[in-house]
């Protein structure tokens, strides 16, 4: 009796399983049908590009905007919003100097039949009778657009397509294109970028004067004594990329004999052949001064900023700033140690400090 009831129960549950799986499947299919058009309406326009005929700032020129429509939905309008930032959901800041209020639609290919419905300083709305997409890859050329004046800033056109003829209602596809004007000569025209650099045994903070000494006699090499010296350099730039100072040159040598440079930051060890530099104050030996100047973003490189540790690799960057830096003074400390078996001679070197901009 008991066994019979259990079999009946199993049979019933089994049939419910079928019903459940069918119901779930139908539900999922219904969801897909409902959701699919919604997700299609949020596709990104592909192969987006902007060609600016003349990239001179503030000139009247033509822009060609190209993109591929992705959704099969009928389109009645295209909204083009000119902003500094390409992100569609960010506040739109009009690129300084840009003006599209006099733009004319000079040419169109692909999806065509558009005219300009409205235009303002930073917005153009193209309109047509709402129709299906038959030639997705399309191009629109506008004349009489006045370029932005600021060559430092790139700008974007935020694109949106709509089913309505007046760019209202839900968007179908979206995407941004990036552009930038240059004056053909330099990107930084507002304030002439400059890099100021000076070098000597002693220099003024602003490079206005030096002590006019460009070499240092370190004395007589002895196996148990460390010879030391120091020089100074001041540097500053108003270039947005900052500066870098590279040290280059062979280590001290006499004929074919070379005092080995320290290839990693190492302490001074009298009695062994060592040549190294750093850009901070040390007490072993007592030489050097920490970088001087309030500008915190101009720094000595990590390997050359550890007190009492010295290094010299020709071509290394010894100091840099990642952006604009007012004048900063660096004091370079030099140490020379020699072993007893070092061959006699006058050991000398010329270190070239190369100040450059960054990219």
């Amino acid at each position, binding site marked *: 009796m008991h066994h019979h009831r259990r079999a009946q129960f199993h049979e019933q549950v089994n049939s419910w399983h079928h019903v459940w799986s069918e119901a779930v499947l139908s539900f999922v299919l219904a969801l897909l049908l409902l959701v699919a058009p919604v997700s299609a309406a949020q596709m990104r326009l592909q192969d987006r590009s902007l060609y600016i005929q003349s990239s001179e700032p503030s000139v009247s020129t033509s822009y060609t905007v190209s993109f591929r429509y992705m959704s099969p939905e009928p389109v009645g309008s295209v909204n083009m919003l000119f902003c500094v930032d390409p992100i569609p959901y960010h506040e739109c800041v009009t690129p300084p100097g840009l003006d599209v209020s006099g733009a004319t639609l000079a040419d169109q290919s692909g999806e065509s039949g558009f005219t300009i419905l409205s235009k303002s300083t930073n917005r153009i709305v193209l309109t047509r009778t709402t129709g299906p997409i038959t030639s997705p890859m399309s191009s629109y050329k506008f004349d009489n657009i006045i370029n932005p004046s600021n060559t430092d800033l790139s700008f974007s056109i935020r694109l949106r397509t709509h089913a309505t003829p007046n760019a209202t209602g839900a968007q179908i596809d979206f995407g941004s294109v990036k552009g930038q004007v240059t004056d053909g000569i330099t990107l930084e025209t507002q304030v002439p970028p400059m890099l100021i650099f000076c070098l000597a045994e002693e*220099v003024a903070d602003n490079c206005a004067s030096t002590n006019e000494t460009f070499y240092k006699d370190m004395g007589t090499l002895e196996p148990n004594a460390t010879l030391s010296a120091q020089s100074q350099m001041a540097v500053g730039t108003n270039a947005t990329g900052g500066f870098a100072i590279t040290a280059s040159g062979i280590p001290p040598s006499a004929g074919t004999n070379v005092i080995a440079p320290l290839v990693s930051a190492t302490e001074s060890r009298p009695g062994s052949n060592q040549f190294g530099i750093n850009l901070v104050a040390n007490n072993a030996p007592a030489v050097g001064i920490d970088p001087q100047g309030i500008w915190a973003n101009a720094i000595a490189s990590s390997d050359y900023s550890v007190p009492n540790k010295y290094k010299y690799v020709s071509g290394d960057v010894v100091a840099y700033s990642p952006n*604009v830096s007012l004048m900063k003074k660096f004091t370079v400390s030099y140490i020379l140690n020699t072993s007893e078996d070092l061959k006699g001679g006058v050991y000398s070197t010329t270190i070239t400090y190369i100040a450059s901009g960054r*990219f």
Partner: protein
Amino acid sequence: MKRFQSILVAAFVLLAATVYLLPVSSASAQSSASLSIVPRKNYTIEPGKSVKDTLTIRNLDAERPLELQLRVVDFTFDDDGGTPKLMIAEDAPQTTWSLKPYLTVPKSVTIAPKSSKTLDIGVSMPANRGAGSLYSAIMYSSGAPDGGNVGLSATGVTLVFATIPGAVDQNLTLTKFGAYNAPREGSKGEYVYATTQMPRTIGFTLKNDGNVTESPVGSITLKHMFGEETVINDINPNKSLALIGQERTFAACIKLQSQDVNFNGSASQTKACAEPSLLPGLYTATLDMYYGQNGNNTQELTKTAHFWYLPLWFIIISVIVLLLIAYFVWRIVSKVRGYSHRKAQPKRSTRRR
């Protein structure tokens, strides 16, 4: 005889004068080592066309003339930063992106103390040159001194970039993205996934496999685990470049602070990272980045990353709170056990009776 004597005297005087003057002329031959130059030039040149421009160099020294030798060298990247690696060896091979063959500069220049000079330079692009980026550097070297164990020589460098418009190969790959500790004095830059220090920058590393330098734009959205959002509107405020072949790390300040400064008499603006006000916890960062050259497709890259910001004070408070909770739980459990124990004991004694 008298004539011979006068010739001898004249020769002696000439020799003495030469000996006396030689060290002076040698000393005055040492050039100034204080200069002001243009750090970067940027050109857009169509194939078959040329650009003429000027370079202004200033000698800041009040006493000595600035004597410079000019030469064009190639450069590449040093690491994932923006420092150029100059290829200064005379026999350095020419790079595929070299501007050297097309760039003309004077060989030398002498500038009087406390004055400046403007030099003519030109870039001529051959008609068959394909689209892409070319770049080299102009080096201005002062002479090397004589004497001493350590001599000093100053050199300035102008980086020169040229873009040849047309259909270029743009190919950036996003290799890393997340909270980033920018390089500081004594430490190198690194990505962090959990940090006790408040992160100031969000970094992203791009590998440039195209034939053109790229300067990305876009935004980063930071979302705290409890929903608070911070948006970084400009991910590349210094308009830094990823060079050809370079894996370049860009560090975007979570809070960017601009400051107007006076640099050598000119108004300028500097941008630096300020201390953001982040709550401790888990953060989700979303990058939405665009790049592309004029007339070429605008490319878009997106990526999401997570990181924990757990300051020490937060860890200590969390541990104390956890210990307190554990203590109270233990007290409650002990009390419950004691109560059960006391309740159970009289029953057993009743049974014994």
